C-alpha cells in the first residue's frame, strides 16, 4: 500500500501551523499563580546558588584549624561565629549545604531511576516479573526505614569505610529505602493507563511496543514522576540529616547540616553556643519546607486527582 502525496498539502504543512498550548505549558502557567509554590521555588534556587557559589568568596574556605578562634560568638569577622576547632560556621554551613543538597538530589535521582524502571516493567509486562518486583518492594516496606538506615550506618562504621566513600554509600542507602515507593506509584499509574481507551486504540492501530511505552505511556507517567521526585528530595535531605546527626551518616570533617546540628547533643553547646546548631537547623527546616511547598504546588497542577 502506498500513500499518494499531494504537493499542495505538503506546502501547507510547512507554512506556520497555528501554535498550540500543550498541557505542560498550561501547567506552568497555573503553577506560576501559586504564590507559595513560587516562593518555595525561589528559595530552593537561592539556597543552591549560595551553597555552591558562596564558599568561593569566603576567606575561610580552606577550613584551617585555628585554636585561637575556638567557640567565638558571631562577630563582624565571623558572621555566624566559629566552632570548636575555630572554623567559620557560615562557611561550613554553606559547604554542608552543598553536600546535603547533593545527597538529596543524587539519592532522589537514583531511587527515581530504579523505581521508575522497575515500576514500568511491573506495570507493563505484569505476570511473574511483576510479582517478583512487587514482593521485593513489599519486603522493603515491611521493615521501617530508619532502623535499616541505622543498621547500615553502623555496619559502615564497623567495617571502617573511609569517610570519602561514606557519602556515596549514604546516597545508595537512601535510594534503597526510596525506590519501592516510587516503583509502586509508577506501577499503579501504568496499570491504570494501560486500560485507558487510547491504549486500546494503540493496540488496534498496531503500534509498536516501543512507541506505546515511550510516546503514549511515559509522557502520562511523567507528571507524577516530577511530583514524587520533588517531594522525595526533601525526604532524602531529612533522612541524611537524621543519620548524620546520630553519627552514622556522613562523618566530620566533611560537613553536612545533619552532623553540624550534632553540636546540640552537647549540653554546653546547646545552652551556651546556639550559633553552632541554630543555623544548620534553620537551613534544613527552610529548605525542606520550600521543597515541600513547591512539590505540593506541582502536585496540584500536574496530578489534580491526588489533591486533598
Amino acid at each position: 500500500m502506498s500513500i499518494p502525496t499531494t504537493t499542495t498539502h505538503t506546502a501547507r504543512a510547512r507554512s506556520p501551523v497555528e501554535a498550540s498550548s500543550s498541557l505542560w505549558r498550561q501547567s506552568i502557567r497555573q503553577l506560576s499563580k501559586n504564590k507559595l509554590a513560587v516562593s518555595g521555588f525561589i528559595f530552593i534556587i537561592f539556597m543552591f546558588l549560595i551553597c555552591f557559589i558562596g564558599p568561593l568568596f569566603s576567606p575561610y574556605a580552606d577550613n584551617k584549624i585555628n585554636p585561637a578562634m575556638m567557640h567565638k560568638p558571631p562577630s563582624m569577622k565571623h558572621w555566624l561565629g566559629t566552632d570548636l576547632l575555630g572554623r567559620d560556621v557560615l562557611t561550613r554551613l554553606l559547604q554542608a549545604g552543598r553536600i546535603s543538597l547533593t545527597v538529596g538530589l543524587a539519592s532522589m535521582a537514583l531511587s527515581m531511576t530504579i523505581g521508575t524502571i522497575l515500576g514500568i516493567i511491573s506495570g507493563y509486562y505484569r505476570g511473574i516479573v511483576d510479582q517478583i518486583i512487587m514482593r521485593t518492594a513489599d519486603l522493603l516496606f515491611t521493615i521501617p526505614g530508619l532502623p535499616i538506615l541505622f543498621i547500615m550506618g553502623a555496619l559502615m562504621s564497623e567495617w571502617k569505610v573511609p569517610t570519602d566513600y561514606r557519602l556515596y554509600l549514604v546516597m545508595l542507602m537512601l535510594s534503597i529505602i526510596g525506590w519501592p515507593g516510587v516503583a509502586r506509584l509508577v506501577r499503579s499509574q501504568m496499570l491504570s493507563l494501560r486500560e485507558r481507551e487510547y491504549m486500546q486504540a494503540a493496540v488496534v492501530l498496531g503500534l509498536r511496543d516501543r512507541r506505546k511505552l515511550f510516546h503514549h505511556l511515559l509522557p502520562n507517567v511523567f507528571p507524577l514522576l516530577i511530583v514524587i521526585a520533588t517531594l522525595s528530595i526533601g525526604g532524602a535531605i531529612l533522612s541524611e540529616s537524621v543519620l548524620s546527626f546520630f553519627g552514622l551518616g556522613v562523618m566530620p570533617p566533611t560537613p553536612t547540616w545533619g552532623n553540624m546540628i550534632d553540636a546540640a547533643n552537647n549540653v554546653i553547646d546547646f545552652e551556651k553556643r546556639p550559633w553552632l546548631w541554630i543555623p544548620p537547623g534553620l537551613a534544613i527546616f527552610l529548605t525542606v519546607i520550600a521543597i515541600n511547598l513547591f512539590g505540593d504546588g506541582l502536585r496540584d497542577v500536574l496530578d489534580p486527582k491526588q489533591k486533598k
Partner: protein
Amino acid sequence: MSEALLEVRHLKKYFPITAGLLNRTVGHVKAVDNISLTIRPGETFGLVGESGSGKSTVGRTILRLHDKTDGEVRFKGISVHDLSKTEMNKLRPQMQLIFQDPYSSLNPRIRIGDAIGEALLDHGLAAKEDIPGYVMEVMESCGLSAYHYNRFPHEFSGGQRQRIGIARALALRPEFIIADEPVSALDVSIQAQIINLFQKLQHTKGLTYLFISHDLSVVEHLCNRIGVMYLGSMMETAPRDELFLRPLHPYTKALLSAIPVPIPKLKRERIVLKGDIPSPANPPSGCKFHTRCPYAVAQCKEETPEFRQAGNDHYVACHLV
C-alpha cells in the same frame, strides 16, 4: 450470496469470575455466547441490543482486543485468532475500531496530527516526510481543518474529537471498520453530522462497517443488514427493511415497538417487557429470552432454539417461528 469479508462462526467469549484468596474461577460471564454473523464487502451491518447484551465484546473480540474463548473469526479468509502477534499487527491496518467515548479514546499528551499519523510510521506505510500532507488530507476528508494538526485533544469539542478518532482509523486505509456506538456520546445535532460523515466515507472509500448501536433509528438510517443481540446471543438477523417490516422474534418486536414515532395521536401496540435483562453469569436455560417473552411455551425453557433461516437472508432463533 457474495463472498464474505468477515465471517464469525460460533464465537464465544467468557470472562472468568474469580473469588477467594487463590483467585479460583467460580463461574463465567458469558458476554458472547455462540454468535455467528457474516459481513459482505461494502455493506453496513448493524448490531443492536440493550446495554450489557455483549455487542461491544463481539466487536472487540473480532479485533482481538480480547482473546476468544471458542469459535472462529475469519477476515478475508484468515483466521484472526490463530495469527502470531507480528502477523496480527500486519493485519491490523485493514480492520479498525472507532470508539464510543471521544474523550477517553485520545491520548491527552499527543498532538492530533501525530495521533493520526503515527501508526503509518510504525507500519511503514508512508515515508516520514509524506505523513503531514497525507494526514491533513485525511483530516479534511473527515471535516477537520489542516491547521488543527498541531493541536492537542483538549482543544476540541466532542464532535470534533470523534472526527479525529475517525480520521485516525481511516489514515491506515482500512477496508473494514467497527464503529462501537460512535454517536451515543454526542448530542443529537452532532450525531447527524457524524452519521452523514460515515455515509460519505463509505461512498468515497468503499468501506465496510460493523455498526454497533443501541439506537434503532440510527441503525435503520445507516445499515443494510441488522443483527439483534440479547444476553450474548444473536436473536435475529435480517436485511433492514425485512427486519423493520416483518420482525419474527418476539424480542425484536418488543424493541421495534419502543421506537418513538413523531405522530402523537398514532396509537400503537406497545409490547412492554417484564423485568430486567438476566445476569449473563447465570443465563436462563433453553431460550435465553424465555423469562421475559410474552409468548413463551414449555419448550422454550428446555431447548435452546436453533439459529435457522426463516426467509430470504432472514435468520432467527425462536421455537415459535
